[in-house]
């Protein structure tokens, strides 16, 4: 009987919503990578670099040493080879951390297998961000503007667009290992992801990271308002 009631309730929603969905035929996303778009992308990239405090770009931005991951929705993520190493967490204020509960992880990331700890400003209790993992992929999310890494992405980047969100991605290798990384904005938050492994597994690492990027973007804006320093 409950199912009949639900069906009736849904069936009685306003005409305007039924019609809105009836006539919706999808959106065609056309990304022209023309000259000015490239320069626009460079400009946007530099703006984000400035905001995030990223280091100087080195070498050619549109390097031929570019690896591309094509997502199942047709979007592409461009990973540019870099010589730089990654930075570490660098937070200038006293902090306190605690593990996020399963419920909190589910609230923030739904079905994604995230384990993370939240980082709070010890002085005023405000949330700075979180650090954790999605499976084997490192995840850092800042709670608001500003980033909790000293060097988010050092080296070269290209700009990609995934579901309308700009993604800055790169990779570097040494003798044995490959590390892929990317940063993007979700609302007020900046998300940084990093995936590393054996060099010969580079393709898999790249694709796994790209899939996680897509899934994180699909979640939409990150809402930290329910995450408090003290567990409820």
């Amino acid at each position: 009987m409950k199912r009949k009631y639900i069906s009736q309730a849904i069936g009685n929603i306003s005409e305007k919503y039924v019609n809105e969905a009836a006539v919706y035929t999808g959106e065609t996303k056309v990304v022209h990578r023309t000259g000015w778009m490239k320069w626009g992308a460079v400009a946007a990239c530099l703006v984000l670099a400035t905001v995030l405090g990223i280091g100087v770009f080195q070498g050619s931005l549109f390097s031929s040493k570019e690896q591309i991951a094509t997502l199942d929705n047709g979007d592409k993520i461009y990973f540019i080879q870099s010589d730089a190493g990654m930075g570490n967490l660098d937070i200038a204020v006293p902090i306190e951390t605690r593990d996020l509960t399963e419920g909190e992880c589910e609230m923030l990331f739904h079905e994604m297998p995230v384990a993370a700890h939240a980082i709070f400003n010890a002085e005023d209790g405000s949330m700075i961000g979180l650090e954790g993992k999605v499976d084997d992929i490192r995840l850092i999310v800042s709670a608001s503007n500003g980033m909790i890494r000293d060097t988010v992405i050092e080296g070269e980047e290209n700009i990609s667009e995934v579901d309308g969100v700009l993604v800055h991605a790169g990779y570097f290798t040494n003798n044995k290992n490959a590390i892929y990384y990317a940063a993007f904005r979700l609302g007020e938050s900046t998300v940084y992801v990093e995936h590393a492994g054996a060099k010969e597994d580079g393709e898999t690492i790249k694709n796994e990271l790209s899939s996680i990027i897509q899934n994180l973007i699909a979640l939409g804006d990150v809402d930290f308002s329910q995450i408090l320093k003290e567990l409820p």
Partner: protein
Amino acid sequence: MVSRLNDSKIIELFYARSEQAIIELSQKYGAICTKVAGNILNDRRDTEECVNDAYLGVWNTVPPQKPDPLPSYLCRIVRNLAIKKYHTNTAAKRNSMYDVALDELENCFPASNAVEDTFQAVETARMIDAFLETLDKKRRILFVRRYWYSDSITDIAHLFQISNHAVSVRLARIRAKLKKYLIEKGVSI
């Protein structure tokens, strides 16, 4: 590209009692009607019958009615007929898109004894309307395509050009919001 009559012209044909009205209606909205009925009935013959009954339903009600917008009017007739047929069918239950979509929503709604009350269902529909108003257009359409039209995850992913997983995640998030919204409005879950 095939040009179709606009809806007001189709309505004029119905008013003129021209059989061309049904042909135009079918050419313009046959695909979506078949999808709505098919998602619920999961049977080609039942679906065809249901869609034809819906055309007849429009023929019998226009005039005096002058539906605007026409597609939602027609789709609602199709959906109501399909659900009626679904309940009268004894076999092949719980395997359609309609069932799957209802399964997903079940946790969002109250389990009270009075849930069979049609009036209460209409009241809840108004709450869902208010909730849908809080969503952006894309998420609203996503929700309606899934739970009103019973579209499959794959069809929705194709429509929005996103992955199946992205659709599932977005729907889960919307359902969580709906549940929270209904609780805030005093609906006991």
